[in-house]
């Protein structure tokens, strides 16, 4: 008998309910980040209504889901954002929400400071405006830092500074940590995925093999003081496991509800291949979680495929499903960023252009460069030529 053991074997077989899940409330965003994993920009007219969102929370409460990671898009753009948050907290579903900081005024910061069941993470992808704004858009660094200031001034403790690691900001790890420390925030590092618009910039922005090693050592040195959302379990192939479960939780302990109520295996896998169903279907979310064919199959023991003979497989378990899928690699095989170098070899064998296209796409400017219908835009700046983003 013991406590606080990573019960990987139970988790791999799936839990009766997610521990937490990601809930993107809207595809609307005032930024247009180049690597946005949900290809956000414009609101989708089919997004869940306030009543439907509350219905989802009722289900999560009944299933005892501890908390939801609310994102988008920029979730605070929804007019009913606080109504939904308050409803969740009142129904014992904790809320962590991701924001680009544009609406974290001193008043909002004060409101966050007043609740133990509310946690906020501000997205920032560089320790300097130069590095950050190149990905998230001009002025987004100043906006995010303004939000950090407001949160710190209001007395919010342990809020998060959330960074997607790229080739350009990895040399700034110590500076990012110092920036978080300055505001009493906790640094959270996550992995760049080739999901959504991230597929377009992945080759350009994903860390080099040398940087992966530097990151691994840095994460080991900082232990639990830096959060990763279990993002980097593929790095466990270097040797020692990093803090966390070191397991792909897709459909087992986590999942994603998107703004229109579609339920995907994970936030990085917004594609029909990973779509379990919709919360509006009969039986709702609970039925999907427990009975969908997709989730049941994800809880079966994984096939190691080409990784079967690798000594590191027990540590990395083949890496990230979404990263493999969107780079055109077979799911039973190495991660594109496999630390043993098997990913690079596998990628060389992928026919260019054969990679699955991310779906759906709510970018304000479609991939082909054609301007799309703006009827659904909510933000006054929507549709303008701001170079900016939304990452969860």
């Amino acid at each position: 008998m013991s406590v606080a053991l990573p019960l990987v074997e139970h988790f791999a077989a799936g839990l009766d309910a997610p521990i937490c899940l990601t809930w993107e409330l809207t595809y609307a965003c005032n930024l247009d980040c180049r690597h946005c994993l949900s290809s956000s920009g414009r609101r989708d007219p089919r997004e869940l209504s306030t009543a439907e969102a509350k219905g989802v929370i009722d289900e999560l409460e009944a299933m005892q889901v501890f908390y939801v990671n609310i994102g988008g898009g920029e979730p605070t753009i929804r007019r009913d954002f606080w109504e939904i948050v308050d409803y969740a907290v009142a129904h014992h579903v904790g809320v962590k929400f991701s924001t680009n900081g544009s609406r974290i005024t001193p008043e909002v910061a004060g409101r966050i400071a007043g609740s133990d069941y509310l946690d906020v993470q501000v997205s920032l992808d560089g320790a300097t405006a130069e590095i950050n704004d190149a990905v998230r858009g001009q002025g987004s660094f100043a906006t995010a830092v303004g939000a950090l200031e407001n949160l710190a001034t209001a007395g919010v403790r342990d809020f998060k500074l959330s960074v997607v690691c790229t080739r350009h900001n990895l040399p700034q790890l110590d500076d990012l940590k110092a920036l978080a420390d300055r505001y009493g925030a906790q640094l959270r590092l996550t992995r760049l995925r080739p999901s959504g618009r991230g597929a377009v910039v992945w080759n350009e922005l994903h860390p080099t093999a040398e940087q992966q090693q530097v990151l691994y050592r840095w994460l080991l040195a900082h232990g639990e003081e830096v959060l990763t959302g279990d993002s980097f379990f593929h790095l466990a192939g270097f040797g020692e496991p990093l803090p966390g479960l070191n397991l792909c939780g897709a459909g087992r302990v986590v999942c994603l509800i998107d703004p229109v109520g579609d339920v995907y295996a994970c936030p990085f896998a917004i594609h029909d291949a990973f779509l379990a169903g919709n919360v509006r279907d009969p039986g709702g979310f609970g039925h999907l979680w427990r009975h969908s064919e997709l989730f049941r199959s994800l809880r079966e023991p994984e096939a190691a495929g080409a990784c079967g003979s690798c000594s590191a497989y027990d540590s990395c378990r083949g890496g990230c499903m979404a990263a493999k899928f969107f780079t055109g690699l077979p799911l039973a095989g190495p991660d594109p960023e496999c630390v043993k170098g098997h990913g690079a070899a596998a990628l060389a064998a992928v026919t260019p252009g054969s990679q699955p296209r991310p779906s759906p796409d709510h970018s304000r400017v479609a991939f082909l460069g054609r301007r799309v219908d703006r009827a659904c835009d909510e933000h006054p700046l929507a549709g303008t030529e701001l170079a900016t983003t939304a990452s969860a």
Partner: protein
Amino acid sequence: MTSVLDQPLGVAPQVSVRPERFGALLYHFGTRRLSFLKDRRLLDVVERLDGSPSAREACSAAGVSETALPAFERALARLVETDMLRERRP
């Protein structure tokens, strides 16, 4: 030093307990930490704490044997340390 077993314990107010096939998950909304109870009997003990004058009596009511008691004591002490459980005060 007194044993955690002699204290009246209870689940901390900000902690949610979710039974699972293997035992239970505990989530602390204040520290935002997750803990696991890898044993159904430990869950039984935790659920009896509030109604028992001491943790020792909760263990006894849950049928924990003398030989198994030290392991339960360690588990409970760890849960107190991480603020999942607290001493109940009148």
